[in-house]
């Protein structure tokens, strides 16, 4: 177990930021801490690093207590904050070398590692330019370079794709995924569910300071969406088609959506649907089985919570 918390709670005055968190993260996992802004993700991360003190509960990261043994913990854990900032008037190289000195790396080793991480993040060519002129994407990569500088066992990334354009975000996620192959445990937080869905082994969904759902993405979909198969179809004309499809025994729900229909069924019944559409004399334009997405799981879950309340 790399990260383990028991009843972790943080209160700011009367506001409860994190409540009774039970988190267990295994070696080499990529774990996604997901949830809307202000749901307690960053507070949790700060407590894991010992940057803020828990109000109650226990934390162990690599078997160390962040409050009592912060130095050996922070020597092995890399952290990339959500709005990462650098000293703008210093170059990328100088920024990294400051961090290397704070980590107490001997100069020769620091130099070798800095060259390696800058090369790996594709920043070798701009290493001697002031960071003030860097784009958001470059800063983010420099941040990851800094995290890798100490050759960490655990990497904690807070909103790593925030503010990046889709292409840069994809590229950045790929870099994060490559850490997994090196045996580094990754904990990342995000509110952009669809982006991180692809790279996370397991995810935990936060809501108002509580971890409300946890598991593999497929498992969650199964649990929350009730194992339904969703089929989207487009056809013309649509008149009367809905009733006809509703009549199929496997179909549990039909909804009009834009130019087409959305079905929920207990099985993959695409052939039957196609047949029904053609029999009704309509032209079938598309027929797709939708993969369950985390966004959907999330939206559905909170819909249910709201209904229950």
């Amino acid at each position: 177990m790399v990260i383990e918390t028991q009843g972790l709670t943080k209160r700011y005055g009367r506001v409860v930021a994190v409540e009774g968190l039970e988190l267990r993260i295994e070696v080499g996992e990529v774990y996604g801490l997901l949830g809307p802004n202000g749901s307690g993700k960053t507070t949790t991360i700060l407590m894991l690093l010992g940057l803020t003190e828990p109000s109650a509960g226990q934390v162990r990261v690599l078997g160390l207590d962040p409050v009592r043994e912060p130095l050996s913990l922070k020597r092995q854990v890399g952290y990339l904050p959500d709005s990462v900032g650098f000293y703008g008037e210093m170059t990328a190289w100088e920024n990294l070398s400051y961090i290397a000195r704070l980590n107490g790396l001997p100069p020769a080793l620091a130099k070798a590692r800095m060259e390696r991480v800058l090369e790996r993040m594709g920043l070798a060519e701009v290493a001697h330019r002031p960071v003030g002129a860097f784009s958001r994407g470059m800063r983010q990569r420099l941040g990851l370079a800094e995290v890798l500088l100490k050759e960490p066992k655990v990497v904690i990334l807070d909103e790593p794709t925030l503010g990046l354009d889709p292409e840069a975000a994809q590229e950045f996620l790929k870099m994060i995924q490559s850490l997994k192959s090196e045996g580094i445990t990754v904990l990342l937080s995000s509110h952009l569910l669809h982006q991180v869905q692809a790279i996370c082994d397991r995810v935990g969904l936060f809501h108002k300071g509580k971890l409300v759902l946890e598991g593999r993405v497929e498992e969650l979909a199964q649990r929350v969406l009730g194992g339904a198969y969703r089929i989207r179809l487009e056809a013309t004309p649509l008149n009367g088609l809905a009733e006809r499809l509703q009549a199929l025994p496997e179909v549990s729900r039909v909804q009009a959506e834009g130019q087409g229909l959305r079905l929920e069924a207990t099985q993959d019944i695409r052939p039957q649907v196609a047949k029904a559409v053609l029999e009704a004399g309509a032209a079938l334009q598309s027929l797709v089985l939708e993969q369950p997405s985390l966004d959907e799981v999330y939206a559905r879950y909170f819909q249910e919570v709201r209904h229950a309340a």
Partner: protein
Amino acid sequence: MQRSSAPRRREGSPWTGLWAVFFKEMADHLSSTRMRILEVLILLSAVGAVYAGAQTLRQTISEDPFLLLRVFTAAQDPLPSFVAFLSFFLPLAAIALGFDAINGEYSRNTLSRILAQPIYRDALLWGKFLAGLATIALILLALFLLVVGLSLIFLGVPPSSEEVARALLFLLATLAYTGVWLGIALVTSVLFRSAATSALAAIAVWLFFALFWGIIAQLLAQAVAPFDPFNPESELRQTEALLAFSRLSPNTLYAEAIQALLNPGVRSLGPVLISQLEGALLGSPLPLGQSFLLAWPQLTGLIALTIGLFAVAYVLFQRREVRA
């Protein structure tokens, strides 16, 4: 997860990473534009003051055994003395170096990144404070040597060893005085999130002591020990009360300390009664040790104030949340 296995005390030294922070901050200070401006200002005023002072002293060169010390304190209208210049500019220099020490890290979003490194917050605060102090010490030393060199050129009289010792003690007092202002700037930089507010607050404190404290001290002294025209003792009491109140200001402490250190003829920093002067050889200089003793309470006061202010900044900073 056994709680018992965790050590009771926090591990490692709070000084880990101190020197990394120190050298980084000092390099920042020495290369910053704000430092250039200060250097030019201080240099110009120092050279002007020393030149004017030396001009006055040339006429009386053979009558004074403490020529170097006179160079520091001699004023010629309209220019104030070198010491007066220093006591005016150094607080500003210290505030300029310290006002954005901590809130600058917040506004650049670098604080959480730095604190995620294996160091304690102690190292960051100490490193910044010491770097500011060292930068000022560096300027002071350069300025001091410049003044000594200039006065040698203008006056052509080498200083005695006692003069050099007194001048070095004066340097120490000046550093302690600057430390107080650096401490104030550090406290405001922790208290206020905006660098502009912090600078303004520190300058307000400076203005308060430079302009208003004298008046307030007088009012307080009058209130505490009212003057009775039929009781001569009440006058003495009022004077003592005034002195006590004005000594709450670092400016007064500094002025008194350098008065005792740079003017060997000064025998007391408070009111002197005629009876106390019995048998004294008026105008004869005190030995260095006695002058130092005279300035000792003021010196320790300044150093204590510096440490106290640093402690306040330290406590405030330790309790501050990392999140902006």
